[in-house]
């Protein structure tokens, strides 16, 4: 291993960054998978529920649920980018600074 890489690995902040960021990324990934496959399973096995009108109109529950799935993808990316470009990048900057 190169010397600078060795110094980074030995820096406790690096361990902190990797642990926090991985946990965050996997949590959000699982959230996305649960939402998406939840939607697909509803489509496969919950057709009647999705086809139930909301109130007295023709708009069904499937519509807001589908739109929610689309919005959730956007919101989850927003949540990740906010924390990664702020907190994590600051930690990363410190690590690289201390390694010099």
């Amino acid at each position: 291993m190169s010397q600078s890489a060795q110094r980074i690995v030995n820096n406790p902040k690096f361990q902190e960054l990797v642990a926090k960021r991985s946990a965050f990324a996997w949590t959000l990934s699982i959230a996305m998978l649960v939402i998406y496959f939840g939607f697909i399973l509803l489509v496969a096995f919950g057709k009647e529920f999705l086809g139930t009108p909301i109130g007295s109109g023709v708009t069904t529950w499937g519509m807001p649920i589908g739109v929610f799935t689309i919005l959730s993808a956007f919101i989850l990316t927003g949540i990740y980018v906010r924390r990664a470009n702020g907190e994590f990048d600051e930690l990363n900057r410190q690590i690289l600074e201390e390694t010099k």
Partner: protein
Amino acid sequence: MRAVSNRIASTVAATAAAAGTLVPASVYAAGAVDGAVQKQATNVSAIVMFLVFVLFTLGITYWAARRTKSAKDFYAAGGGITGFQNGLAIAGDYMSAASFLGIAGLVYANGFDGLIYSVGFLVGWPLVLFLIAERLRNLGKYTFADVASYRFKQTPIRTLSACGSLATVTFYLIAQMVGAGKLIQLLFGLDYMVAVIIVGVLMIGYVTFGGMLATTWVQIIKAVLLLSGASFMAFMILAKFGFSPEAMFKAAVDVHPKGVAIMSPGAFVSDPVDTISLGLTLMFGTAGLPHILMRFFTVSDAKEARKSVFYATGFIGYFYILTFIIGFGAIVLILGKDANGAYPFLTAAPAEGVKAAVASVIGGTNMAAIHTAHAVGGDLFFGFISAVAFATILAVVAGLTLAGASAVSHDLYASVFARGRVNEADEIRVSKITTVVIGIVSIVLGIAFENQNVAFMVGLAFAIAASTNFPVLLMSMFWGRMTTRGAVMGGAIGLISACVMIALGPTVWKAVLGHPTAIIGYANPGVFSIVLAFAGIWFFSITDNSAQAEKERRDFEDQYVRSQTGLGAEGASAH
């Protein structure tokens, strides 16, 4: 309006036939205009607007050509694209004519079910962000093979990745070229062959002279045009119903032959295994498309790479919501009477008291969005949307061609054939020659496949990307014990199993080759081929006890540090 509709009136409705019988696999086919179409009368306003687009983008290519000097400029636009611009370009790569016309057509024909596909195409993006984007940016230079081969033997992994890239790009290109020829015949009244040659020549021009910088800006301009056009359409449709979705849905239910059934999931998703398989293929295929992965090297650092995905996800999601509204608007505007009590977009008016058939729309269901543009914006807007559809195809094929050329010049020529002993000028020259070759080959294939069913090809491209490129790329970044042998064997197993299962499945064996039943019942091989690829990588890595394998495992730590922190990563060019 009547006059223009009549121009398309003689079009064979073969395209519509697919609408009622769609199985999940044919989602990829959505936008491909299948079957025979007749040449239409020349559409002057559309041609003029398209010419303006071409002149403008050629101007950009000239500007880009003067700035494109080094290999970094050619492959990665000098690394100077911002996250917002790259987000638009990625969204542009993804918003093909197929997804615009195809998904609006699916919604028009089936209502709610169209949404299921939009969602499937979108949800891969968050995963790209969480798991791939920043590592890719930190480790790579020009192609995803840079990352996949980072600590491994260059020759085998680069060769495998180049095969995966070229296979993906070729199948995708053929589908786009054939779709382009048919669509342009339909919209512009140009000859099929003329249309295919125009697309081929222009894409060669953009890529050889302007490299990634021109390709990116063509894509950005087209994305803005398409998003603006679609926003205008959705706005006009909603305005007709006082901005009440409920009123729009009610009107659609009243005229659609399926009635209230368009408001709930239909028969699309009949087999859960096939559906989950499709979902996996769409998700992981997105993360394995070489022309999209390449875009992550056009930004300056990991921060901008993350922003790119955030903006791209927003634009793509917004676009799918628009196509959903446009699809429902199409139901009302095409299947319902207009202000004069006529049905201007149907081949024949339905009998009194009978609902119009979905398939009776002029030009087939994929034309639903185009007719809707006509109904809400008149002849001029119809011309605009037609020109945007043409521009869309052009921008997407340019990106694909650049990705294919890079796989040949950067991976095969520079790393495998010349073993790294090559100067930049030679490498770029090879890339430009390859671009011309790919352009000519795709013109020839486009003409050769004119009357073939190419619907399965985009599905095949996604399946290969998900079963070869993605597993090798992901494991190379995440799993320290992977070795060259494991990557090559696993990737090859994924590639072969995806191709064989599609060839023996319903989309090729039954629909293309005409056998009565398919040997393999599943249209989407993803759930099998992706798992096989990962299992292959695992098995052939852990059983690899060579000295080379030990060295590769030791080298993981260095790669890991760089992927996490960006230490030593490629920066942006100085200029």
